[in-house]
């Protein structure tokens, strides 16, 4: 039921008409995000945490680390796993229940940006190959949904990971692992951010608010690392793009990504 919001024809026409005049309902430029706020270390019980707002969209990310077994095909790598919950708190149109498709997509798209950028060296999370590794749970809760959760989720994940402290461990004789009080910061090698562009009619705008999102036909979320590599990409929804359009969007997104990374680095420095 995450999608039973009916947008009125008047609102839709208004958004479209404004866009054709190169204006947005909230006065932003096409390539401009809403105001971004990043707050870290809110939750001390988590190994790392962050609250990110983009305009009225608000999302909290918490990182928990647990000892567990590695996957058989990557015996000497730690594991990262993401989950997202579109809590009914966040919107009158969300209902409680198992994760919706939208929540799954959000978690997986964000997971990809983090994983593929190799921002965390997973081998460093291995304690005893084949036996014991750190599992990092990256959990998102949407607190207020006003569109474009993707960019907020990646910012939140990176801000939280940057502040994550993992306990040190001692390997005992019988390969038992003892978790020590002392912690160390997780080493971050790269700082991926994602930029989501929504196609509304013929126009492409970044960071749609909820109403823009509801009238959009498609979206593209691209993750970039700080060396301008594309590390992830996801096209969402039913609409289609011309190849040139995709290129254009990616180039524009790359520029936008630099602003987002500035916000990220400011928040974690």
């Amino acid at each position, binding site marked *: 039921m995450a999608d039973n919001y*009916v*947008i*009125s*024809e*008047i*609102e*839709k026409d*208004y958004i479209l008409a404004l866009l054709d*005049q190169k*204006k947005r309902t909230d006065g932003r430029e096409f390539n401009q995000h809403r105001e971004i706020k990043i707050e870290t270390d809110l939750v001390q019980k988590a190994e790392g945490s962050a609250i990110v707002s983009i305009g009225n969209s608000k999302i909290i990310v918490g990182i928990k680390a647990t000892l567990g077994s590695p996957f058989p095909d990557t015996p000497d790598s730690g594991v990262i796993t993401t989950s997202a919950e579109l809590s009914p708190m966040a919107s009158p149109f969300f209902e409680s229940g198992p994760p919706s498709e939208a929540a799954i997509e959000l978690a997986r798209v964000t997971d990809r940006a983090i994983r593929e950028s190799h921002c965390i060296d997973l081998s460093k999370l291995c304690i005893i190959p084949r036996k014991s590794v750190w599992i990092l749970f990256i959990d998102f809760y949407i607190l207020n949904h006003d569109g474009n959760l993707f960019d907020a989720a990646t910012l939140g994940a990176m801000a939280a990971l940057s502040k994550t402290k993992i306990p040190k461990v001692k390997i005992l004789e019988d390969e038992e692992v003892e978790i020590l009080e002392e912690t160390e910061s997780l080493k971050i090698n790269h700082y991926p951010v994602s930029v989501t562009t929504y196609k509304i009619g013929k126009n492409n705008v970044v960071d749609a608010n909820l109403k823009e999102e509801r009238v959009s036909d498609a979206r593209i979320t691209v993750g970039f690392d700080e060396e301008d590599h594309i590390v992830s990409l996801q096209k969402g929804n039913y609409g289609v793009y011309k190849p040139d359009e995709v290129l254009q969007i990616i180039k524009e997104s790359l520029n936008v990504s630099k602003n987002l990374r500035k916000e990220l680095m400011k928040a974690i420095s």
Partner: protein
Amino acid sequence: MSEIKVENHEIVIPGDLLAEGEFRCGDGVVKRGNSYYSTLIGLFQDKGDFIQVKSLKGKYFPRPGDLAIGKIIEVGLTSWIVDIGSPYFAILSGNNATEKRFDPVKDDARKIFDIGDIILTKIISFDRTKDPTIITNERGLGKLRGGRIIEIEAAHIPRVIGKKGTMINMVKRLTRTQIITGQNGRIWVQGKKIDDELKAIESIKKIELEAHTQGLTDRIRAMLSDNQQTTLGDE
């Protein structure tokens, strides 16, 4: 014996003791024993022997005769379900929709109003046990085209309208827009220029934000006059 315990226009919250003795009471007040308590967050109003708490927030409660701006969210064979921003969805039946008789065999409900359409309606009945019934077959009612819809707290609509419409008429005049205010907190604004619409919306938002304050008309006039030197010249 009768005694008022709070200042007129003071902000009160649920449970606040308002008065003791004999009073008539309006919305937002309950009597327990000889005492009167607030049930709402709002402005206390002392009108002599009559006290009430004017709500500052909350869902729209339909009343027969209200004009409301609704959104079609479901289309049936012979009726529509309309979101009027109240706790209850409203029902618009075929025969209340158009001046012509609605024939479910020949007429296609979707061709009259479709999902997502915004309509200006009048509430004709509502008694809490049944969903509100609305009509669109009177003059001036029906589908709204173009323009823009904004939503504010329904409780602030009387403030937006002002005494005998003074506030809203001033906004219309100074921003050169057409404005329809629904009692349900939805307002339709249309101007020739988008900037005019934006100014009208800005002033309505300001009225909402400062609804529980005094001297608002003057401040809105000042705001619109500052921004709109040219408009004033036009008049």
